[in-house]
């Protein structure tokens, strides 16, 4: 299996929320607080030594997803084809246990009370993607997820993890390889550089 995942560089992120908006539109999410992808603004220190970075967060399609492990019905599946974690909503009982198991707050519940989250744009709505062919063969999948497509600074990328690692810094690659059960995201270390640096580090 070639794990599909995300790449994120906080130094490039300007916190514009284009990724989360694109995700919301693409997946027709209009249910109040439900956001599959969101941007967290994280501050540190006090004025004048204050720094803030923005982090685009969603489901990271973990290698060993806790959400899948606690789900009573196996509604959550780690796909063998591409490592994307999908939800079979027809099996979900809406117990919310998975949302507490996920450290990233990725799993959310809409008005129908069923679990929904990012499926890497395998489809275009809650529960889509389950049972679909591998990402590169799927006719319903976008070539790149809407969040990546709409990122104006290149802070966010996606694809097979090996390809993402090739384009990442040594530090980010080493950090990713240090945890083989964790999230499928190659995360560049934040250096505190404000705004877009244009430097891949």
């Amino acid at each position: 299996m070639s794990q599909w995942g995300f790449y994120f560089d906080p130094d490039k992120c300007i916190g514009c929320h284009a990724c989360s908006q694109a995700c919301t539109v693409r997946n027709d999410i209009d249910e109040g607080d439900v956001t599959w992808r969101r941007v967290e603004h994280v501050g540190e220190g006090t004025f004048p030594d204050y720094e803030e970075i923005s982090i685009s967060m969603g489901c990271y399609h973990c290698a060993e997803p806790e959400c899948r492990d606690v789900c009573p019905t196996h509604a959550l599946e780690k796909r063998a084809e591409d490592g994307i974690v999908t939800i079979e909503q027809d099996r979900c009982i809406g117990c919310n246990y998975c949302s507490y198991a996920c450290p990233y707050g990725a799993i959310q519940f809409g008005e129908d009370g069923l679990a929904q989250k990012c499926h890497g744009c395998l489809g275009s709505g809650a529960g889509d993607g389950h049972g679909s062919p591998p990402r590169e063969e799927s006719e319903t999948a976008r070539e790149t997820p809407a969040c990546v497509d709409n990122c104006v600074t290149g802070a966010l990328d996606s694809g097979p993890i090996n390809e993402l690692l090739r384009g990442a810094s040594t530090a980010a690659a080493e950090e990713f390889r240090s945890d083989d059960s964790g999230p499928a995201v190659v995360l560049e270390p934040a250096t505190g550089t404000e705004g877009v640096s244009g430097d891949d580090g």
Partner: protein
Amino acid sequence: MMDSPDGLVWLTQQEYGWYIAAYLFFSGLAGGAYVTGFAADVLRVRSTDPAVDRPMYSITRWGTVLALGAVGAGMVFLLVFHLGAPVRALLFPILFVNVGSWLVIGTWIIVLFSAVATLQGLWVVWHENPAGRAAFPRVVTSRIENRFDVPVDSWLARVASRTHPGPRRRLLCSGVGSALALSMIAYTGFKLGDVSATVPLWDGTLLPALFLASALSIGLAATVGVTVLFDGVEGTNVTAFSVADDVVILGEIAVLALFLTTLASGGPGAVSAFGLLTEEYGLVFWGGVVTVGLALPLAISVGLIALERRVDVHASDRLRRLVRGTYTLKFGFVVLGGVALRYLIIAAAYNAPLST
């Protein structure tokens, strides 16, 4: 704390609402009440004093009836208020395939407990002609039978009579039910504790112990409390049960102290949970859990024991009423403390922050 710029990603609070706190409370109450009823059953069988028989059996009936009522109430909160697809959840024998999930383990424990408790309820209420107000379900079925000419009472009595396995086997069956009751209480703690990596408040070791102590305490308090309230204190061994509750409360205080110490000395998420419990929700915690649920019942108990040592509380109606009312008040406080504890365990459950 989570509002200060500390370089950590604090996620927004999650989905469990007050109805899950209610579910946790009622399942704990059900387990504790059933175990109390079983303890009274054992005391009755082992006692050679015939005066003990009726009040102990009354406690057993109250314990069983309360357990069934509470487990039913818990299911209402879970199925009606909480689950997104409750009808689908009723297909659990087919759909619940992840046997390693605490939710699946817990479901089967609840189902088995409910089955055993229902049988016990049938036997202790509809077998023979039980006396005492704990047999009120029998009064209800008798009235239905008389008023609407539906032979529900006769039918239940016949089923109870045909299935009754005899006193010893019934007690053995009740022992199995008690083991299931204890498992049901513990499972709620283990279920939450299984995700303690995400929610530091739900300590995987201490939360089950805290739930166990609290559930036994509130179950005993509720069962003996309603017995005292409706059937009086005579022959109920209320003092012994009250002291037993005090011992459980002391154990709960020890676990709670360890729980708080662990939180206060943990990572940022645990420290934040400690702050939420003791400061933001300080009124409910110090006022509800500690003062009403733990300290006041112990203080009342000390006062009652001192009174019972000095005077014969059965000497006058006035004294008897005073003691009955005070015990009821004490047990009521214990139950209220249990409600406050479950509310806080859900309300203060925030995610551990992520580092950047």
